[in-house]
């Protein structure tokens, strides 16, 4: 098998799913070509170049996935994590990474000096970092008979939160609503489901407000005025997270159901 390919003036359009993306990879190898761009649904038409619709075919996706599996766990893992990225060009970056990985072989994941490998690694790290920050900064509220949280991540981090919160709250039901991507992760009993979600009801009740007030008071009491250094605060906890953190000044209580309007 050889991996030469021509860059073609052509845009792949696919359904946005992981299997769909793998089919784009399949297409690229099958036609020995590299498109100019790969577009997911919702992504506006980028150029005047013709588009090719890539149909998601389960068997093709499986073949590609098995092939990637032979490159080792690290490559497959990087791909799976980086695919959650919210960046528009991620599909092209990952296609380049996979093509490069097939050239290099099982060492590909560690070869960070290589531009394509390094780019995929960056994507992976960005997603991981955001997921980690979400694990830190997410706030649950008692909503109805379960815990609920609303987050606004840049990347689709929900799958990376699952293991942590299921382990942390072994006997609780909870729901995490990703308001950026209109998806929710619902955990009930031992079952976890991902659901589309535009609006989150019910609202937290009065007892919950009490807890939040208490937490705010604790937070304020903890601050040492003589050491005040908000720059430092923002480097560790970027402002974009504040809207969902009830102790922060930019907390948007009313904004939690923004999607309604």
């Amino acid at each position, binding site marked *: 098998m050889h991996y030469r390919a021509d860059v073609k003036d052509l845009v792949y359009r696919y359904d946005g799913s992981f299997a769909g993306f793998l089919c784009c990879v399949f297409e690229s190898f099958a036609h020995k070509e590299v498109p100019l761009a790969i577009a997911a649904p919702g992504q506006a038409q980028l150029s005047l170049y013709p588009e090719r619709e890539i149909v998601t075919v389960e068997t093709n996706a499986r073949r590609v996935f098995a092939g990637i599996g032979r490159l080792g766990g690290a490559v497959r893992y990087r791909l799976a994590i980086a695919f959650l990225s919210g960046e528009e060009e991620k599909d092209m970056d990952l296609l380049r990474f996979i093509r490069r990985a097939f050239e290099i072989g099982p060492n590909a994941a560690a070869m*960070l000096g290589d531009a394509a490998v390094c780019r995929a690694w960056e994507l992976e790290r960005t997603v991981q970092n955001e997921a980690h920050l979400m*694990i830190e900064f997410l706030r649950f509220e008692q909503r109805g008979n379960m815990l609920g949280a609303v987050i606004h991540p840049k990347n689709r981090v929900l799958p990376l939160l699952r293991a942590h919160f299921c382990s942390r709250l*072994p006997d609780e039901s909870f729901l995490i609503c990703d308001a950026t991507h209109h998806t929710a992760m619902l955990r009930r009993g031992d079952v976890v489901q991902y659901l589309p979600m535009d609006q989150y009801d019910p609202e937290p009740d009065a007892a919950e407000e009490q807890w939040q007030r*208490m*937490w705010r*008071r604790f937070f304020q009491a903890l601050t040492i*005025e003589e*050491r005040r250094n908000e720059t430092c605060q923002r480097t560790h906890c970027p402002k974009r997270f504040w809207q969902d953190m009830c102790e922060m000044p930019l907390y948007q209580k009313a904004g939690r159901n923004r999607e309604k309007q």
Partner: protein
Amino acid sequence: MAELAEKLEILADSAKYDVACTSSGVDRGGRHGSLGSCSAAGICHSFTPDGRCVSLLKVLLSNACCYDCCYCVNRRSNDVPRATFTPRELAELTIGFYRRNYIEGLFLSSAVLGSPDITMERMIEALRILREEYHFRGYIHAKTIPGADALLIHRLGMLADRLSVNIELPSEESLHRLAPDKQKSAVLRPMGQIAAEARQNQRELQLYRTAPKFAPAGQSTQMIIGASPETDRHILTLTEALYKKYSLKRVFYSAYLPVVQDSRLPALTTRPPLLREHRLYQADWLLRFYHFSAGELLSENEPNFDPYLDPKCDWAVRHPEFFPVEVNRAPLNELLRVPGIGPKSARRIVKARKLQTLGMPELKRLGVVLKRAQYFITCNGCLGAHGSRSEIAGALVDPKAFGVGMQQLSLDDFLPTALPDAAPQMHQLTGQGMPAQEAAQLLRQEAVTCITGRM
């Protein structure tokens, strides 16, 4: 509930000067029938406007102290509102906050309520409720009360993940002068006991995997910097000895913040020595992760850290013979000595160079920050960058020392001011009326000239 909130405010306010707030050191997954888990790296849940991490519910069980340590807000002779939690209130608060993902667990300490033993018994009861009734598997850090019975320390250790015994002041004289009710032996005895029990526990765990664990995240301590006259060298040597002798996991430093007027203490107008505290933490880091020793970092002639250079750069300036270091061949511990290369980058370099020869572009992709490192490395024999002595000095000075932030006077009026952790000279100059940016420039120039001269 409102009353509980009031207590919480008082007891968090009194605990806030305790700096240790980390939930690190144990890995423990969740389990059905219980609540919570722990992750070895620790998790921060928020950051206060002073830039410190909030990881644990850090409170005192009580601030009604019967001792009279002169540097402490809670001392008997101070007139402040007093409050005491019941063990159950404390447990309920912890669980309520924990479920909402506000915290990783509890950091409990206390003023001396009547006697050390009574205080410890109450603390133990709170932890017992958490562990046995709520089956709480989150993190618990408990501070032992100096002078408490050895058996109580043992019981506390069976419930907590980490124990700490605060050394408070870096020398016996200072302790004697400022905290007349405490003795060094009362601090060191429990520290020794905890270290011995932990070792014993290790052996038991090797025999029976299910043996109950004693303070699995080890012990830590804390000392106040700047309330007494010890040098950085004294403090760092003490730190090193504590790590070795008592296998401490962490030593924390807390810049002294004047809370009381007392002839034995720095004046109330004294600024907390935050930059000094920062340098000590950097040096502590070098001891723990970079294989440096205290003796290498400071000497009798230079017993204090340079405010304008971080300790590692300082070492590099004093040891030109060590450099340059060849990134493609040097062993890990040599890479670690290069200014700008941390443990993460160093490990990445070692891994990546097995597969390809590294040049400057590759290093950049690996995420190595080259601003400083470039002058101290070679890539396959080629120097990373050539620089004049003053260029190198310019790259090495620590911008933190000249930090300028914006103070908001009104909605659209901002005044540049020296950040709290800038060098003391910055505060001096701005205090005399010099605009902050000008002071920063002036001092930076002076520092660069001085470092250039040393090279």
